[in-house]
């Protein structure tokens, strides 16, 4: 299944990037696709649940828009603080518990934290993430665990 998914994804990637449909280029693309799939699977051994998490692709349609809206909201907040004459920041370190079961899920959560302006994940350990927050409000927003729950639901789409 994962092979088919990677072949389709790579073929679509080739066609969309080239946009040229001569027989030679299509054949070259097909050859490249199979070479890459063979190399990823047999030599690098990365064609697994971490290297190509194709099972997550459907859930991404609900998680990503939510995450984008969070990025817009907190991005605007950080922008206002930077432009504020008195620079009203209150940097702090917090430990946020994680409820994800797999490494992919933890990486999704940690990257979502970093991607959201105002919070950066500093260190990822078993069961918790050390987060540097630009403001106390940002740290408190993370402490509600909303993003944690959504990342876990995203990961559970296995």
């Amino acid at each position, binding site marked *: 299944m994962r092979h088919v998914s990677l072949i389709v994804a790579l073929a679509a990637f080739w066609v*969309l990037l080239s946009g040229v449909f001569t027989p030679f280029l299509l054949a070259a693309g097909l050859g490249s696709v199979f070479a890459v799939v063979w190399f990823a699977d047999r030599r690098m051994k990365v064609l697994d649940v971490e290297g190509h998490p194709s099972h997550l692709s459907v859930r991404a349609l609900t998680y990503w828009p939510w995450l984008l809206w969070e990025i817009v909201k907190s991005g605007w907040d950080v922008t206002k603080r930077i432009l504020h004459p008195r620079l009203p920041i209150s940097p702090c370190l917090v430990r946020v518990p994680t409820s994800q079961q797999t490494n992919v899920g933890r990486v999704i959560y940690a990257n979502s934290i970093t991607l959201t302006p105002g919070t950066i994940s500093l260190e990822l350990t078993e069961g918790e993430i*050390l987060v540097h927050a630009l403001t106390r409000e940002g740290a408190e927003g993370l402490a509600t665990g909303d993003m944690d729950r959504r990342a876990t639901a995203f990961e559970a789409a296995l």
Partner: protein
Amino acid sequence: MSLAADILGWAFILAGSFFTVVGAFGLIRMPDLYTRLHASGVLDPFGVSLILIGLMFQAGFTLVTVKLAFLVLLLLFTSPVACHALARAALHREVKPLLDDERSSSSKR
């Protein structure tokens, strides 16, 4: 191209430029490495993504738009990793983050 798409595209490009400039401004104003990372490492990809979305509206339904979409995805996947790597490296080299309680006690408030 229709006028609406043109205006929408320019709105995205201008908004993206605004956030990128603010990110650079924050890089100068922030007090230490970690807070500067908040301004540059996180606000910049946000601004650049907005610029790329604006360019997609300018390009219309062409393969260029698809390539720009790939760029946005690449940016959103890699920039948090780079940002995290930088912050973690600083933490492991024991760069002490400036915290709020120290800041308020050192200033006269």
